[in-house]
């Protein structure tokens, strides 16, 4: 699909009214940091991982999505669309014509047409965060900023994290680490817990499946580990991509040698949930795996990481 401003990070307007594009918020998250947390997913990511489970988070501007199974075929969306022909047939969308005006989302009565992403101010985000204050306090939880890639909207992410800390809310951030160091540093200075993705140790393999080089990511990982209070490495385990023993050996070694503060690695097992989600935004799911990830394999890779003195969880 064609999207305006694709891949262009949102720019802060001024310090008073900093805003950004949020793709989702999720209260009661129990898997992304300590305690009970509220997740703020910022939209837009510099990577294009083929297996991405949230493809609707990749572009930087709001976009339309379509749940074919919810569509009743009432055709109320058709006249609302400036490119009416996009809906000439029920249950079908011609994505290349979509300009993301969202008129069809307004017109839909069945929630089959949705908007992914909306502009929010930091104040609006904080209003959501504060709602679960009592749960943060009682469970040792807080706010986790994720994405897309949070560091790709640095001013917005930084201001959310800073404000949370100011209000006594524990902060965490999920990141792929792909951002210029100075900008990245300015964001993570307000992070209590950093959840840092490392996908592949090999530069060429990394670029082939994610679209970017891994050198910046690994450099930032080392620097960040010396800076933040607590850091956990997250390892999305993708069959036929990064599940070789050699890759995992290298990763364990890298963490042990270069990131002494890091004690824990969370393995996130591949799941094909991304496939149907790609279809909802009119994108093709390119990822194909020949082999499945067996429990034995996952456990043996876990042992390799453990041999470097790391505490390893599966799930995360």
């Amino acid at each position, binding site marked *: 699909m064609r999207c305006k401003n694709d891949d262009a990070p949102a720019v802060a307007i001024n310090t008073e009214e900093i805003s950004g594009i949020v793709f989702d918020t*999720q*209260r*009661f*998250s*129990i*898997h992304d940091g300590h*305690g*009970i947390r509220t997740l703020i997913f910022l939209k837009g990511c510099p990577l294009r991982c083929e297996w991405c*489970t*949230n493809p609707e988070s990749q572009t930087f501007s709001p976009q339309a999505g379509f*749940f074919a*199974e919810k569509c*009743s075929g*009432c055709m*109320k969306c058709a006249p609302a669309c400036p490119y009416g022909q996009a809906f000439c047939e029920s249950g079908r969308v011609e994505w290349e014509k979509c300009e993301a005006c969202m008129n069809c989302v307004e017109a839909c*009565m*069945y*929630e089959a047409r949705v908007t992914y992403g909306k502009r929010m101010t930091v104040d609006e985000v904080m209003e959501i965060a504060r*709602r*679960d204050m*009592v*749960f943060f*306090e*009682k*469970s*040792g*939880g807080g706010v986790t900023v994720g994405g897309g890639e949070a560091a790709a909207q640095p001013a917005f992410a930084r201001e959310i994290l800073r404000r949370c800390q100011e209000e006594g809310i524990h902060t965490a951030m999920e990141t792929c680490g792909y951002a210029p160091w100075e900008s990245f540093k300015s964001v993570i200075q307000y992070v209590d817990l950093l959840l840092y993705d490392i996908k592949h140790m090999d530069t060429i393999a990394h670029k082939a499946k994610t679209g970017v080089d891994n050198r910046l990511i690994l450099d930032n990982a080392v620097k960040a580990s010396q800076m933040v209070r607590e850091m956990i490495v*997250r390892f*999305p385990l993708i069959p036929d991509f990064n599940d070789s023993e050699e890759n995992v050996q290298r990763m364990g070694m890298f963490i042990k040698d270069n990131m002494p503060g890091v004690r824990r690695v*969370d393995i*996130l*097992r*591949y*799941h*094909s*949930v991304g*496939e*149907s989600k790609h279809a909802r935004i009119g994108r093709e799911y390119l990822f194909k795996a020949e082999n499945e990830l067996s429990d034995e394999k996952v456990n043996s890779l876990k042992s390799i990481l453990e041999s470097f003195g790391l505490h390893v969880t599966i*799930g*995360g």
Partner: protein
Amino acid sequence: MVFPEAGISWIDREIEHLHTRPQDRFAVDPRDIVIFREEILPFWKGKSLEDILRTESGMLIDAIGRVVKINQKDHAQGHICPDTKGWLTHGPQELCERAKTKLASETDEKKKLFYRSTVMVLDASSRFMLRYAALARELAKGSEYAADLEENARICEKLAKQPAETFHEAVQSLWFLYVILHMESNASSFSPGRMDQYLYPYYKRDTDSGVLDNEGALEIIHCLWLKFNQIVYLRNSHSAKYFAGFPIGFNVAIGGQIKGGVDAANELSYIFLKAQEDLLLPQPNLSARLFDGSSQAFIEACVRVIGKGGGMPQIFNDKSIIPALMKQGISEEDATNYAIVGCVELTTHGNNLGWSDAAMFNVVKALELAVNHGKCLLTGKHLGPDLGALDDYGTYAELEHALAAEVDYFSEKMIEACEAVERIHQEILPSPFLSCVINDCMEKGVDVTAGGAQYNLSGIQIIQPANIADSLAAIKKLVFDEKRIAPAELLQALRSNFEDREPLRQVLLNSAPKYGNDIDEVDEIAAKWVAYFSERLAKRTNYRGGRYHTGMYTVSAHVAMGQNVGASADGRKSREPLADGGMSAMYGRDVNGPTSLLKSVSKLDSGYGSNGTLLNMKFLPAFFKTGEGIQKFAGLLRAFVALGINHVQFNVVNKDDLLAAQREPEKHRNLTIRVAGYTAYFTELARDLQDEIIARTAYGDIA
């Protein structure tokens, strides 16, 4: 066992169908049917509570039946927490002596009659225990369990004359009390209450002296737990729909606090949790009381048992319940020592006839009448006052005014019916044995049904905040504020049960805020109507001279009560169930997760739930599998305490839930599943992924 003095006509109507009826079947011996028809029925016909009430107030009860369900029409009240501690301390013999002394000095004829009856039942209780002793001795002959049976015989014999001294004796004595209470009244929910408190001195003495260890105590508790499952209460088929699944309501409370905010949890609290974990049976109904000072160890022990999936222990909140009870005129000491009877009904220990299931008031039905000239959408019959219809009201305020009028009208009628029920209970079902273990009946010489208890509350349930809030919020926003839907169009849609108006129903469902998502504008509507109903009722006095107060729970009545309600403006179709529980959101509409639901619920004043409230929540089994998960769950419970919600109980999602979500996605939109480091709504996953997750749950491994 039939109790013809309470109800006879319904048994006459149903006795042949008890073994085939859809809910809670009972096997009946054909020879018993003959005895019933030839001997019992001819004598009792027209003399029972059921028949007399029907003759005197049947018309009234039927006339309001679609809005108000009046309870206890053909059985005793039950729902009471007797003074078990007093029973253990004194035993039947000593209580009997006390009654005799009272009788000797009493001059009032009515009171003499009362004391005479208590002497009779207490004397009979001692003899009853002796029969057990004789039987045990008989069974001991040549048995491999001879030693155990001899010991049982010794205990039964002793308890007939003396109070209990050891832990084993105390538990046996307790069980005798509950068996006899069930023999006197056919009622459910005689609840032992805080067993971990009043049994503790016996446990402590025995373990200190070395005659008992924790294993021995656990074995005795296992046996008691099994016993709690042996008494089954026969309800009529209508009542069985409202209270489905053979509920008997041996509610046992553990933990909480004692005077001065001291943590009450002790070794027995943990032994009870262990027994629950080992047996996972429906009874007892195990309830854990929590407060700010509950230890982390106790909360986590509760969470581990909750994770087993039996729905127990359910959780009660001292922080909100103690003040709620004190608002009803209960002393701080009694309120601090509160217990739970039946499912979730709140009571003091041993001195309150709470009459907690007096009636259920269906405010959703009242709203239906308010939008439709006081006429029932299902039958077209005039039931309530005609203040107009939705298309007559120029403003939302006028609609609210009409709803208030319907509520007032039916409240008045309800109180009239409740008084009739209580009056006939006094005449037909005096309960001398129960009166021996409820203070101050013996002191006053007044039967418990006649107001002998220290506290005499009557509880009315408000049904159902979620549907009231969702319906009114949809009307307010879409009809009056935004004018997206014409009043006549909505009314027509409701009358036709949304026939050919599915898009309109979708707008009602998707374009108006829903209770359970921490959205103030809709949550406040629920809070407002709960307050309105409760405040009006609080001004009234019941037949025993006590107060009316309110609760928010339905057990399974949300299904039966939903069958009485036509299509509603929240997008619910005609005759479909109302929201479950009492405080819960409508199925699948709480899509912002459990913290939002708890926040929404916390906006309803817990003080209006002094008769008890019920909130159901569901979690994935994976939550309970790691120490970290258990800690997080404990954090959730501490937040629940801080939010001041009276009650919550937890189910664990299983395979059937997921299959149901596939079949009816609309009702399960709140179900989230963890996939690959990402949490997704189950109903939004592609079908093949759903199937895969369902297949995984076969191994109890959904994440």
